[in-house]
């Protein structure tokens, strides 16, 4: 055998043992696929080597060559190229999944990140938090003694600070700077009461809450409003 033929024979036997390199495999397939039926060609070598190995291992040997029929059948089968519609729906479905996940994520974050009251707090109203600046621990201003609470009954608050419910129903005032000039606390209170009453009566007319703003004014001199 010539050198290339010898190399081919070695490649074929290596392929049969499953030990051929990629380059070799490609070369063999090219040779085998060529149309010529040469006695010394790769194709007939392939057949003879297979027959020889079958005889040696005792497997049944057939002289029927099915390769032509199979090649014909493969040619007849239609190629599985994805139609453009299938490509579109494939990518559309991926997009749809991504979009719906993104939308759920955004809506979920929106619902939770904004300030949202828990339902039980709003409905039961068991206890109202008194923020630090509302507590009566301000500086020199004392509540005047003539403003007495109108509360006869103690309100029920679950474990709350019961001292809160007995405080007088008056505005909690804090001066924002050290008071250098003389002023009367009574004047401030009178002015604020008047202001709050005017605001409430305007609000009762100009808001959607009907007469509710009037309910906020509990220490007013109710009869003096003349707007």
């Amino acid at each position: 055998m010539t050198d290339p033929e010898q190399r081919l024979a070695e490649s074929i036997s290596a392929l049969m043992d499953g030990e051929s390199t990629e380059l070799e495999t490609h070369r063999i397939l090219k040779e085998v696929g060529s149309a010529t039926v040469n006695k010394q060609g790769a194709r007939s070598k392939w057949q003879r080597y297979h027959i020889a190995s079958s005889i040696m291992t005792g497997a049944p040997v057939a002289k029927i060559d099915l390769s032509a029929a199979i090649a014909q059948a493969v040619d007849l089968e239609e190629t599985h190229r994805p139609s453009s519609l299938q490509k579109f729906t494939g990518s559309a479905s991926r997009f749809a999944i991504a979009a719906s996940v993104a939308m759920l994520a955004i809506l979920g974050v929106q619902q939770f990140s904004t300030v949202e009251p828990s339902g039980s707090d709003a409905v039961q109203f068991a206890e109202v938090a008194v923020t630090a600046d509302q507590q009566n621990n301000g500086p020199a201003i004392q509540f005047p003694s003539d403003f007495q609470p109108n509360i006869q009954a103690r309100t029920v608050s679950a474990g709350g600070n019961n001292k809160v419910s007995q405080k007088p129903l008056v505005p909690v005032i804090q001066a924002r700077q050290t008071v250098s000039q003389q002023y009367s606390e009574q004047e401030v209170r009178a002015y604020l009461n008047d202001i709050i009453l005017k605001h409430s009566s305007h609000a009762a007319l100009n808001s959607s809450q009907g007469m509710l703003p009037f309910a906020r004014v509990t220490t007013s001199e109710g009869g003096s409003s003349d707007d």
Partner: protein
Amino acid sequence: MLVKWLTQVKLAALLAAVFVHGPLISQQMDSAYDLMARMAKASKELSYSGLFTYEFRGNLTSVKVEHVVRDGETYERIVYMDGPEREIVRRGENINCMRASDMLLRGSALKINDNTYAHLQDFYNFYIRGDARIAGRQVSVVNVIPKDKYRYGYVIAIDKETGLMLQSVLINRQGKPMERFQFVDVSIGTQVNDIEFSSELIDSADIGADQSDCLEGNQQAKVSESRWTPRWLPAGFVLSSYQPAGTDGQESLMYTDGLAVFSVFIDSSSKIRNLPKVDANLGATVAVLTNTEFNDQRFAICVVGEIPRSTASQIANAIAPIPARPMQ
């Protein structure tokens, strides 16, 4: 082939779910907002009477209310059931009078100036929480959540049958309730129309309804003729009422964004303008008193409302005189 068909069905179901999901969410927001608009209408146009409680910081008061619409005019009465006997009667309000807050709550966009519109949904999110039972009636509960830090949120319960607001809770920035208003007993509808409005109580105030704040149909927010203006306002607030300075030297401007309301009082009288700068709280209402000088004259400025204190401070510091107008 069956497998192919199944995958196509799955795909179709997925796409359908995605496209239906979107409108459903916005539908929920829309119907919550529709409830609010219905509430605004009902509180003006329905006749009702009842007893409600008002609670803040552990203090509870109860108030009786009557609201009768007769021949296109409204008669309202509030009677305080606790403390000294007092009542307030208001009559003569025309039910066709649409004020700024009415229009905003019903979804109109009010024009503030050429570039700015105030529209309620820009500043609050509305979510339907669920159902409840208040004062013996079935209600829908709506969460109103502000989109910025300049205003408070609300939980509002609206009667399913008539649209009247039966409960309102003011929620602060930390999510804590600050005040609660809730009907205990209410009758709505025609059986209320026969109530006579005569006052037998000693301490009774009869106030007329100021019709000058009614807006024309052109959706333009009121323009202030005041000499003062806030150089800064939280977005969405429009002027809803203006009272010029009377003999007491006090001007007032009222702003609303449809839900929250605040007033600005500017005093030039000598007694008031020398008051020190104070902050005051009465329950949910905050009052910020400051002063300013202009043209060698001192003015006291007070911002009052159910808004966060920091917002009120910012507004008070931003009140400035309009340079073009002559000061009197």
